[in-house]
């Protein structure tokens, strides 16, 4: 096997050195009763070439662009990824390194993550950001746990327009530990209705997502005004960070924590993972923050360098009192997103965000013109809800056969919207794609 360097001769010499007769004898400390009684029943080893065939045919069965036109967003976004980012990320000094525990020979990862922290903090308008969490959903769960630690409260309010799958993850994390979750309904304009919030005295946090699951931009300023001066933390979640190239940042609107999914920034969709949990907050919360942090320091000669820092918050030091159990995170995805953000730059980010917005507005208008309803009037970014006619399911299926995925049916998550579909338009869609969609929808 080409990964195993041992020749028979090597094995013989090494066994001799350790005083064992056979490879099996190495396992002498495993009691007989603990030994596996049967051989591994695994399919025969494949050659590299057979593997290529098999994986090629599995991958070939998936519906992806350019063969398919996919108008799905809802937490995973199709964006163009520069070949330069793909190349850089494949450099094995980045990809095959471990967590940078030995900083002197890990300055590449450390500086790149430090820059990532800087870019994320700038993007979200926050003071500090960590080195990443698993994904947007677990980042939100960690943010709520952090708010509970900071506020010493057990109840959190969650907008019902937070991604439905994120809310399921939050329940998984919070319910066993005895937290209470209040879900906030939404208003007619497709934004969170804060009227039923009641008083904040027992609330650890209010969490909303913007753009929310209907694609609408939440009134973050209003929430910021509500929580300002209280012990309740304002958590702004997101699934599409590109929106902050155009819209005001959570930090500028009074958020205490901003967290969400960074997949949009140069990370392949990969059927939902790996993703990138972005996590940023205000400086006073630093020591309650989950996840790794990279900090700047100097070496013995006074030269700038970077290290993992504040590990005292982490599980390997604080054990059960750690701010979180997170250890392996999404470091390579964080570096990827930094490469992507650097590629865009401030100028490019704004232009790209505006283009997403404009293309989405174009589709919205064309759909309206063709007679389709868009039930929510709130401003959107690159997603919006459209109400298709009753019985649209068959048409949806026919469009699939024409290699078009016409959005996400919302009825599964919002039963009150049985004909609601969430459509997403990114820069990957040309005007022709949009015109084709409208035409096919009109004559499915």
């Amino acid at each position: 096997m080409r990964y195993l360097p041992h020749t028979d001769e090597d094995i013989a010499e090494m066994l001799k050195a350790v005083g064992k007769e056979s490879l099996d004898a190495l396992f002498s400390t495993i009691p007989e009763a603990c030994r596996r009684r049967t051989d591994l029943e695994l399919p025969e080893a494949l050659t590299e070439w057979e593997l290529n065939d098999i994986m090629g045919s599995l991958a070939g069965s998936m519906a992806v662009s350019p063969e398919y036109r996919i108008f799905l967003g809802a937490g995973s976004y199709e964006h163009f990824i520069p070949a330069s980012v793909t190349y850089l990320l494949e450099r094995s000094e980045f990809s095959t390194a471990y967590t940078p525990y030995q900083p002197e020979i890990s300055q590449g990862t450390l500086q790149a993550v430090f820059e990532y922290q800087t870019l994320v903090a700038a993007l979200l308008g926050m003071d500090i950001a960590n080195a990443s969490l698993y994904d947007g959903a677990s980042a939100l769960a960690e943010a709520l746990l952090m708010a509970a630690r900071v506020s010493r409260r057990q109840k959190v309010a969650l907008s019902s327009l937070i991604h439905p799958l994120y809310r399921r993850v939050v329940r998984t994390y919070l319910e066993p530990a005895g937290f209470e979750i209040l879900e906030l309904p939404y208003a007619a304009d497709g934004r969170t209705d804060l009227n039923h919030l009641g008083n904040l005295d027992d609330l650890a946090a209010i969490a909303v997502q913007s753009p929310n699951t209907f694609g609408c931009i939440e009134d973050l300023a209003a929430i910021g005004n509500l929580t300002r001066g209280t012990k309740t933390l304002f958590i702004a979640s997101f699934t599409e960070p590109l929106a902050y190239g155009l819209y005001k940042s959570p930090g500028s609107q009074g958020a205490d924590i901003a967290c969400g999914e960074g997949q949009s920034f140069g990370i392949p969709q990969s059927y939902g993972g790996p993703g990138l949990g972005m996590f940023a907050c205000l400086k006073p919360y630093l020591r309650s923050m989950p996840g790794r942090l990279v900090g700047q320091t100097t070496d013995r000669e006074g030269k700038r360098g970077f290290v993992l820092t504040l590990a005292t918050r982490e599980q390997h030091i604080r054990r059960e009192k750690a701010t979180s159990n997170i250890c392996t995170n999404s470091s390579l995805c964080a570096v990827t997103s930094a490469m992507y953000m650097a590629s865009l730059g401030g100028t490019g980010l704004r232009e790209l965000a505006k283009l997403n917005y404009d293309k989405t507005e174009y589709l919205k208008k064309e759909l309206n013109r063709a007679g389709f309803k868009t039930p929510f009037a709130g401003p959107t970014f690159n997603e919006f809800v459209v109400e298709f006619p009753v019985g649209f399911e068959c048409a949806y299926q026919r469009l699939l056969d024409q290699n078009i995925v016409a959005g996400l049916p919302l009825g599964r998550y919002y039963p009150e919207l049985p004909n609601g579909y969430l459509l997403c338009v990114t820069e990957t869609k040309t005007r022709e794609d949009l015109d084709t969609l409208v035409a096919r929808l009109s004559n499915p």
Partner: protein
Amino acid sequence: LNEPLLLEKGKKGRCGFSLPRRDVESCPVEEELLGEGPNFPDLSEGEIVRHYTRLSTWNFGLDSGMYPLGSCTMKYNPKTNERQASLPGFAGAHPLLPEQLSQGTLKMMFHLERLLAEVTGMDAVSLQPAAGAHGELAGMLIFHAWHKSRNSHRTKILIPDTAHGTNPASAALCGFHPVNVKSNEDGILSAKVIAREMDEETAGIMITNPNTLGLFEENIREIADIVHARGGLVYADGANMNALMGMVSMGELGVDVLHLNLHKTFSTPHGGGGPGAGSICVGKRLEPFLPVPRVLEADGTYSLSYDFPESIGKLHAFYGNVGVMIKAYSYLRSLGPDLKKVSQLAVLNANYIKEKLKNTLYLPYDRPCMHECVFSDKLQAQKKITTLDMAKRLMDYGFHPPTIYFPLVVSGAIMIEPTETESKEEIDLFIEAFKEVAREAEEDPERLRNAPSFSKVRRLDETAAARHPLLTSFDAS
């Protein structure tokens, strides 16, 4: 070569990204929502490529040299796995595609679960956890849900001093209080101690096997029987599974829940700290509690099902780190039954190092080890040379240092895990280098204290970093 920070570079107006052609009109944006956008630096593509290329050269990766980090299983990451995961059909797939359009990935996931079940000897698998500690959390949530389903409320959990560091934190997240259990003079758990600690308020035990001393927990079956008899469950941290493939069936040992680190045992790259994947494996009776959705198969068609009412729920927005799964699946299919040989050679390499270095470094537990061996700096302490000094000096010899100061049960621990992909020649070089470092500790201790000498930076001040945290360029400027 030096290279400034990104934020110290760039000029407004450059762009390293190919902005798509604008083929629609510009639309107005609601004024009060409109932001200014972050003030990222603007760079050309060439500048970005150069920036990250330079940064990469300051990093030591597995392809740079031997990386014998104990407990981390830094084995060669096959390049073909990367190729498979980047196939457009995999990399470009949206997670909410209709099932009929995503059969390939679902099939891969289904079969990967079956393969992992066979390797571990467990009955059912969920690939959803995104990392080892996430898998541990899933395990603890399953403990919690199982006890709850039996209307039992247990608050404690046993955790040996030789377990992985994440275990207590994972348990605490589910509201369990960790009870520290000491290993015996052989470095393993004795059944007697467990019998004493295990009670009706204890949800179960979290065992790392082989443990963090690299030793097989010889009494695990007896321990499992004790825990089960008192209504508890047994969790095994499978991060060290690289020692045991084909040799042991975790299910037969009495393990109820086990997580695997696909980025350790199954060769997916660590990425400088992730992404990994921490698949979780359970016995039949715990299958109903696994995270949803689960991948099902019927008549050759694959689907995702949320219809498991006892499930602990979701742990990840979608289905976990599918990109990582593809690499692990490629590895498993490429090795097949040779996985047993992987474990045999990993254990051979570790025992060889243990034998060859045991006169150079203090070996607290002189017994046959599994995939890693643990030394300490006791012999060098007289010259006031610490584990840290030796670790830093090893860098100058072209090796990544071993894991240091872990496990906590050994003071000044040096934890060496070579893995099976290191050749005898490379290991001999490593042994020779370590002996040389030990010689220097005798003869030229100052040299060690000043190490490393040839790296991008010299020894860094970690204390200052923690005392005055500078976490962004804005902070630091």
